[in-house]
């Protein structure tokens, strides 16, 4: 049998990312020393960290890095964190949610302060990324033939809690270049106090390349909110997500359970599995 035929997966193929596109999209990753420029409370349970990363090659919107902490006896703990910023600079923004019994997140949220040094490895991940000029290159789902040109496919972002971090990077990158691609963010939070990047998101929603923002409150809604707090359901996805018929590129990020549920419902609602990209943070 012919090689070409054999190599072509017979079913839908997100694997059709040409190596050249992947290599172009990602700067090579490596270990770097980051100096904490500042920290601030992002929400009652989360902190935002601004890092100056020595030798950072820049990163695409949606990528992550690994943070390695070392104790005096040499014991190390390493965790992944999405990057809320993108572009060529060496300043990198993280936002970390504190897990009550966590080993690393309480340290990053409560203990770290300006001037501290951290080891980071990155940038990492070349699939869960969005870039304005490379919407075409990044649009490697291989399902674009005959459709509208890649850059015009609308983008739907769906975040659970801290899963908003890489999606905020995408929305901010989109806003920064006044890209005309329609962007919509569905964001599930516990309460109004738990919205990350609340001011920035508000500004993006009012900007010239607008972001349509839909919030879902799971524990406490603002006064006068039309619906009572509840977790995202399939019905919510039906009304607050760009319909499958418009062929959005969808990015879903949050805890593993959140992502599993949302991605399954999206497929049930007719979204092409190849158009759905996911980042699972762990947990259940």
């Amino acid at each position, binding site marked *: *049998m012919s090689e070409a035929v*054999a*190599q072509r*997966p017979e*079913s*839908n*193929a*997100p*694997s*059709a*990312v040409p*190596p050249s596109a*992947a*290599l172009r999209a*990602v700067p*090579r*990753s490596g*270990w770097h*020393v980051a100096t904490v420029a500042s920290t601030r409370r992002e929400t009652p349970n989360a902190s935002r960290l601004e890092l100056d990363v020595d030798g950072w090659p820049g990163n695409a919107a949606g990528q992550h890095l*690994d943070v*390695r*902490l*070392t*104790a*005096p006896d040499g*014991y*190390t*703990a*390493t*965790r*992944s964190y999405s990057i809320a910023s993108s572009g060529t600079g060496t300043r990198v923004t993280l936002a970390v949610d504190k897990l009550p019994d966590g*080993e690393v997140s309480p*340290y990053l949220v409560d*203990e*770290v302060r300006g001037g*501290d*040094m*951290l*080891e980071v*490895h990155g940038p*990492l*991940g*070349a*699939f*869960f990324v969005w870039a304005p000029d490379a919407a075409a290159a990044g649009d490697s789902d291989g399902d674009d033939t005959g459709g509208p040109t890649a850059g015009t496919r609308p983008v739907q972002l769906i975040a659970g809690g801290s899963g908003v971090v890489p999606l905020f990077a995408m929305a901010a990158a989109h806003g920064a270049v006044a890209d005309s691609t329609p962007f919509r963010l569905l964001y599930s939070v516990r309460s109004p106090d738990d919205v990350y990047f609340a001011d920035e998101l508000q500004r993006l929603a009012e900007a010239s390349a607008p972001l349509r923002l839909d919030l879902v409150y799971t524990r406490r809604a603002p006064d006068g909110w039309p619906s009572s707090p509840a977790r995202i359901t399939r019905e919510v996805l039906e009304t607050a997500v760009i319909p499958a018929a418009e062929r959005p590129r969808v990015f879903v990020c949050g805890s*593993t359970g959140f992502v*599993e549920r949302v*991605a*399954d419902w*999206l*497929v049930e609602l007719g979204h092409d*599995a*190849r158009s*759905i*990209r*996911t980042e*699972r943070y*762990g*947990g*259940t």
Partner: protein
Amino acid sequence: MSFITRGFSGRSRDRDDRLPPGQTLVPDFPVLSAGPTPEVDTAEWEFTIRTESGVHRWNWDEFMALAIEDVDTDIHCVTHWSKLGTNWRGVSLDTLFEHVETEREFVMAHSYGGYTTNVPLDELLGGKAWVAFEFDGEPLEPEHGGPARLLVPHLYFWKSAKWVRGLLMMDEDEPGFWEQNGYHLHGDPWTEERYW
């Protein structure tokens, strides 16, 4: 380059010799996926090995009729999670390759959903790899790669292709889906071959 992080003491010192560097023990099952979980019906399931000379095929019933092995092993996910003493049932790749003739030394594993990952053939033979369909005595859940996934526990777990549907023999090593997106071509957890 490593230096001590001010103010960090760490929680646990339950370092275990079975834990590769940079890994943390976790009780639950780590999930690394780039998209939705495909639903694959065993009635339509098929597993193939494609070589320069032809295709070897098994449907679900034929597959279940092969010699099935119990596997107790540790698994290591590139996202820094390890799980020790996991229990699987599956068919050894030695069994699957018993009647396969090939000069080709590299394998591209293909999955339902379109994902691919590359592994050298000698990393799959000699009791090192299985196609597993049971975890902890239960049918493997779709989220974890069911109905069947590759199990190559001595490499990072993304090499253990979920929803596996076939192996394509290749002359040269080529990056699969995960490797094109930043993961290491080989993926040995003991030398931390995480990323390129």
